[in-house]
Structure formats: structure tokens, C-alpha cells
């Protein structure tokens, strides 16, 4: 388990307790956060669970795979160096405190 903080597009911060092995995306969906669509449910087919990973977490995450890098080129909002697809971020206890920000739009 780890606590993950999500910053909604309106700036509101929401902290969720996410079980180990769950994705940052699926916890956000279950909780009904506003800034995420995740239409494909984590199959890396839609790029609508885009998030910006806040410091210092980016380098502590496994780097994106080839498919994720390709999908990130096509996100609806601005792509930044810290852009990730939240469906690919799997929670482990070491990620306690992870903070991600949702972009203005997902599609």
C-alpha cells in the first residue's frame, strides 16, 4: 500500500490509499476523480489517463516502455518531460507519497 496524491485540473489535491499492485489509474477511476478518463481501462490503447509526475518521483519510477512512449506522443494535452500514462504506474510501498497531476484535458 502507498498513499498517492492526485492534483485535479482545478488544483484540488486528493490523496488515496492505493493497494500494492494496483495502478495509479485504476485507483483514480474507482474514486471517481475528475481529471482522468481511462477509456480503455489500462490496455494502453487510448492515452486518456495522462498525468504529470511531480518531483522527485519521476526518476524513482521504472521508465516508460516502448508502447507507452509512443502513446505519450499522442496525448490530448501538452506533453511534458514528466508525462506518463497512469495505467502503467503500478503502486508499491516505496512509492509512498507519489504525487501526480492531471492535465486540463484527456481527449
Amino acid at each position: 500500500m502507498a498513499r498517492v496524491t492526485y492534483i485535479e485540473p482545478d488544483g484540488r489535491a486528493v490523496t488515496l490509499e492505493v493497494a500494492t499492485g494496483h495502478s495509479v489509474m485504476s485507483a483514480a477511476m474507482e474514486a471517481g476523480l475528475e481529471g482522468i478518463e481511462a477509456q480503455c481501462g489500462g490496455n494502453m490503447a487510448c492515452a486518456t489517463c495522462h498525468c504529470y509526475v511531480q518531483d522527485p518521483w519521476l526518476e524513482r519510477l521504472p521508465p516508460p516502455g516502448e508502447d507507452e512512449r509512443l502513446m505519450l506522443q499522442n496525448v490530448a494535452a501538452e506533453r511534458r518531460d514528466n508525462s506518463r500514462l497512469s495505467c502503467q504506474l503500478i503502486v508499491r510501498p516505496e512509492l509512498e507519497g507519489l504525487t501526480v497531476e492531471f492535465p486540463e484535458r484527456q481527449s
Partner: protein
Amino acid sequence: MSSHAPIIIVGAGQAGVQIAESLRQEGYGGELLLIGEEPHPPYQRPPLSKKWLFDAGNPVSLAIRGAEALARRRIELKLEARVERLDRGSTTLELASGERLSYSRVALATGSLPRVLPVPGATLQGVLCLRGIADSAAIAAAIRRCASEQRPVVVIGGGFIGLEVAAGARKLGAAVTVLEGLPRLMSRVTAPIVSEAFEQLHRSHGVQFVFDAQVTELRGTREGHVAMVRTADGREFAAGCVVVGIGVTPDDRLAAEAGLPCERGIIVDECSRTADPMIVAAGDCTARRLADGRLLRLESVQNAVEQGKSAAAALMGRERPFYATPWFWSDQYDVKLQMAGLSQGYDQVIVRGDVAKPAFSAFYLRAGRLIAVDSLNRIPDHMLAKRLLDNDLSPTAEQIADAGFDLHSLVRQSA
């Protein structure tokens, strides 16, 4: 009709939850009741034939929304409740429990049901179909048993679900035979070159195929468990379990019995409205009447989400037609198939990429204009195709065929 009565949504699936949440976003402040027959809060079905099937140990959450998130939006969730009747005269719904609920307006989001194999033996134990969480768990257990007892899994139907299950069964170590009634795989939705690539892929993983197979009978053991599948040409296939994936039937029963026009689905317009101004419908249970009069049936997450948004707007008296380019995906082994647009009626297919790998896209044209693209492990092509089709842009056949031409330049030009 009581205008204080809630809006009631029948079916707590992908479309149902979308209608509920979009109603709140559209500013509906009244009572809202979401009724579902299953014991689970709304969940995603696509993983059930993919990752979840062979990897349920990994706690991937299937939830679209948890009960708490719905409660926070004042969406009352009533689970394990089945609506039996829609009475338009008295504007009430009757539940299987006998309870009657008054509605101000109704949204039907009842989804679809797996088509049952119309042959003797279809109800034997070990004959399984895939729609919900329980089905996926039962199929995974049956496949594991087949793998350990070295009995073959027989999949009937070479469409998306059948092929995804076949891939999952290979991953779990079971022998797999796929029986397909037509001469090639996924033939209703893809060009032969795509069918062939998937046939190759599955064969390279050890799947056996029988095409033009007309299943006539399933035979069981004395205990009533399926043991054999027979086809019209007299062939027999030993089976430790049988997975049937021969398509779905839209669940339009409530609407049809209430006298609403249905034709393999509840007929709705592009704003998800039915013939009754108090009733909208969205998702797998619908057939959408297009501007040119044709009926379009789609079974996809995107369709459920987009029609759900339209349905909520319609209930608020607003028009929000659904025109977005249809898209769909399927995962088989390490190949990701992504489809944009609808390829029916194409007169030309042009391939970009490496067919043997496979890492290619099939571009479908009709009368020289792009209508659809199927991409196998070509994510950028798929994302580009959605943009081209959404913006009604079409490369020429020559541009597509020219591997050196940058198709992205067309989108950049128009932007």
C-alpha cells in the same frame, strides 16, 4: 407522471454509469437511481478476455467507479436488482422482487447477451461463454484444469473474444483448437491480410484452426460434462472445455415488450433518443439510426461512453449527437490491434509497415477516400488515423502506398 420521481437508469455497466455521471455534469440535481442486476459496482469488461483471464492473481482493479464515488455524486446504486418490466402507461418499472418504482424518465443501458450455440449439448457442463466477471473466472479455472489434465480447450468462434481466450489459454499452457464457421478469422470486421496475420500469430503459438466448421453437436460424459464437439463434416474434436464466442444479442427485451421500436437493438437516433420522449437508451442494447437511414450497431466501450453522454444530454433536453470516429482494440499475445473507423464497404486496402513482423497498418479506402485503419503494433498510425478520420481528412492512395511520405504532415497542414 410524477416529476419528483427519480430518473432511473436500467443497467449499471459502462453506458449506465456514464449516463449517471454525465447527468450530474449536465446539471441534473434531482434523484438518480442506477439499477444493476450483477453484484458488482460498474466494471470494465475488456480485461476479462485479456489480462484478467490469465493474470487474475495480479490485483488489477476492474472498477469503473466505486460505490463511494457514486454516492458522493448522489447516484443511488441498487445492485442485484433486475428490472422485469417497463410500464410506460403508469411510468413505473417493475423489479423481479415485485417492487414497483415510479420514474420521471428512464435510460435503458442493458447491454447485450452472449449468443447461445443453437445445437444439442450447448448446456452441458464445461460449455462456457464470456460476459461477466464470474464467466471469466470460470473460464480461467476450466482452462487451468484442461492444462493440468492435458485435455484440449475448444474455442467456437474466431472473433475477438474467441481469439483473446485462445491466446490466454495458450499462456496458461492448454492445447487450443479454434473452430470458425467462416473461411477466415474476424472476417466481418477486417481485411484478409489482417485475418491472415492473426492466423499466423496464433499458429506460431501452437493454436490449431479449423475453418468453415459447422458445429452440429456437443457430446458429454455420463456425468454431463462436455467431452467432444462434432462438426457437420463428421469430424469430432475432443474437448476438456468449450468456450463459445459467437457474438452477442442486444438485450432490448424491456423496450420491445413496452412497444418501443427495436430491430436487433433499441432504435435510437444520433442523440440516443428512443421513440418515447421520456426514454433514452445507450450502449450495446441499441441500434443507432444514421442520417442516411441505415442502422448502425456497435459493441464497444467508446460507443457506450459516447452514447451515454448523448443520452444524458437528451434527458436534459439538449442535443449532443455522437459523430466521433469509432475505435476499438484487441490484445493477442504481444500484438496490439487498434482499429479506427468502420471498414465495411471498402474497395481498396493499402498496407504500410512490415506484415511479417507483424507491425503494419491496413488502410481502407472507399472511392479513393480513407474510411478506416487497422493497426497491428503500429500505435502512431492508429492515433494518426483517429485524427485524420475525425477531421475528415484523407491521404491519397499514392501517399499511403509511399512509405517515405509522412502522413502526419496532413494533420499538421490542417491544424
